[in-house]
């Protein structure tokens, strides 16, 4: 089961190491991880996606919770949260018409296009993993020279008593 875990942690050195080391030492799997500071400079949010069965997932959450540097651990419901990933792909341009085709595809997928050159082009997309995978499939034919993914970033919908 693919799951998104949102973890608030102390924003200090060594915390990312503790989290990733916990996954390593307990033989859990990290699919993606993204980290950034929150509105409170003392707190960072880590968004971790993982492939685990229900029992393992419950252990992951409890073990994360047990770490002293974690302040809040939440399992996000895919339907009740917004989650996105930013991806950049550098594609190969083999013939001049490629540029037009790729730009059209990019528009259809609401991508930004950067660094258009004779031999390569970079497209940038922020979307759910499904859409990203669909786009990747479509542009594969041109040749993906390089790709960078940020990992999932997510927030639960609504706030407080609304839920």
């Amino acid at each position, binding site marked *: 089961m693919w799951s998104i875990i949102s973890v608030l942690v*102390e924003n200090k050195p060594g915390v990312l190491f503790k989290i990733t080391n916990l996954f390593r030492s307990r033989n859990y799997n990290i699919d993606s991880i993204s980290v950034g500071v929150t509105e409170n400079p003392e707190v960072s949010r880590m968004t971790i996606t993982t492939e685990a069965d229900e029992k393992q997932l419950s*252990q992951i959450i*409890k073990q994360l919770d047990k770490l*002293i540097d974690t302040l809040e651990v939440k399992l996000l419901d895919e339907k009740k949260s917004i989650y996105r990933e930013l991806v950049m792909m550098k594609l190969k341009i083999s013939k001049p018409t490629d540029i037009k085709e790729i730009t059209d595809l990019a528009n259809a997928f609401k991508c930004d296009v950067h660094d258009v050159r004779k031999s390569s082009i970079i497209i940038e997309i922020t979307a759910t993993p499904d859409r990203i995978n669909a786009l990747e499939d479509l542009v594969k034919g041109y040749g993906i020279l390089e790709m960078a993914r940020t990992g999932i970033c997510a927030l639960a919908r609504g706030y407080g008593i609304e839920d």
Partner: protein
Amino acid sequence: MIALEKEGVDIAFGLPGGANLPIYDELYKSNIRHVLVRHEQSASHMADGFGRVSRRPGVCFATSGPGATNIVTGIATAQADSAPMVAITGQVPSKMIGRDAFQESDIIGITNPIVKYAFQPMTPNEIPEVVKKAFYIAATGRPGPVLIDIPKDVQQNEAEIQFPSEVKIRGYHPWVDPDITQIERATEMLLSAERPIILAGGGVIISSAFAELQSIAELLMIPVVTTFKGKGSFPENHPLSLGPIGMHGHAEANKMMTEADCVLACGSRFSDRSVGTFEEFEKNLKIIHMDVDPAEIGKNQTTNIAVVGDVKTSLRIMVKMLIQKAIKRNGENAWAKRVKETKDYYRENLKIHPHPLAASKVLKKLREVLPAQSIVTTEVGQHQMWASLFFDVIHPGTFFSSTGLGTMGWGFPAAIGAKAAKPDVPVLDIAGEGSFNMTENSLAVSVLEDIPVIVFLLNNFTLGMVAQWQRTFYDRRMIGVDLKNCPDYVKVAEAYGAQGIRAQTIDEIGKAVQTAIKSNVATVIDIPIDPQEDVLPFVAPGTSLKDMILPS
């Protein structure tokens, strides 16, 4: 040092080196007693033994690099058995960190998976708060080891220092109040069970829930089995006691555990060594699990009712509920009868190893002559499992062993730490020579620091447990187990200025223990036993408790 004194520290175990000299210079001026060890690993085990017995964090010091890596085993041992410890290491000066300096090791990185928490203060004025937090974290909730790694310049520099009177750590909530409704449901489940059993783990000892546990067992007339770590959480001479379950559990304990339909597990993590295969254990068994650590719930066993919180508090609430409901059972039912019959049968009919110094005879003699309030530690190996089988703990909370990590060499230094915590009672390490070998240089500490402990050495001249597995599972292909009667442990004891006694009959063993207690000096009692004796019963690894192999 002042910060340590403020935490009530009066003794610390350690060994100085380049990177912790400034700490030692302050130690020179302080009232804290320093116990100089011969190897840092022993310092960590001493702090561990001190911590388990006093239930206050034991403190050990080591220098950077190899000093720090030498205590890694001790930290891992304390973590596996939830023992409170504060380990303080020196580190190379902060400007040298990351430059592969002489005696630099990334001890924070190395110990990450085996500490409860680790600090590396980078300015002197952080130290008081760090020390306060370290003791708080080590001792509260589920206890464990905390590391403080202090760069040499941070030890040296002077600063205006404020000592905090309390600390708050927002991500740390060690105590949760147990949920009353859950305890009510647990009580109902226990009362409606036909074949209930109590499984007491190490958590009962850590939280001193002895009286509460005994009340529940006696009110409901429920038999009590323990894990090996929980050995001695319930008096083993009590009629309701069946002893430890597990790989080398008592036959009656394993048997009744597999027949029970409901278990009240208190402060136990259902280790594989205790329960055998996880799937088989939970079959046809309702599990009530009380534990202070929420992450233990459902980790190894599917729980029917979970009670998260201090075991002592939870059990006390349960006792109150039972008293309010005026429940007092007399034990006249089919299950109680079955339990008694099984216990009597196995206690009378299990075959004893036919050697004049069979482990069972030796350890029963030890029990006879050793006062009940004495503290007993063990090393790791066959002798440890024989202690589990044949040495009854009468006074709760007087038996300690490296049960989780299974660290050979733990028992002797831990006994020294225990004796430092409780100087008024005899402290004895039930040892095997393979394990004792690993930290025997602590004899110097026991003698010179006048912390006398007794090493009760079941000497079979082999790494006996490994030999048993080679006999059982590897078709008697014996390799790497023969210790060939070297060294002579009486002479070793004498070389360190300790008392060495060789005891070759049951009678001599009794007298030797009495002599050791009376003389109150460090003593090694060397007992040559039969190298061929196996530890039985035996639940082979990867099998379930019902597949227990009995002596034949």
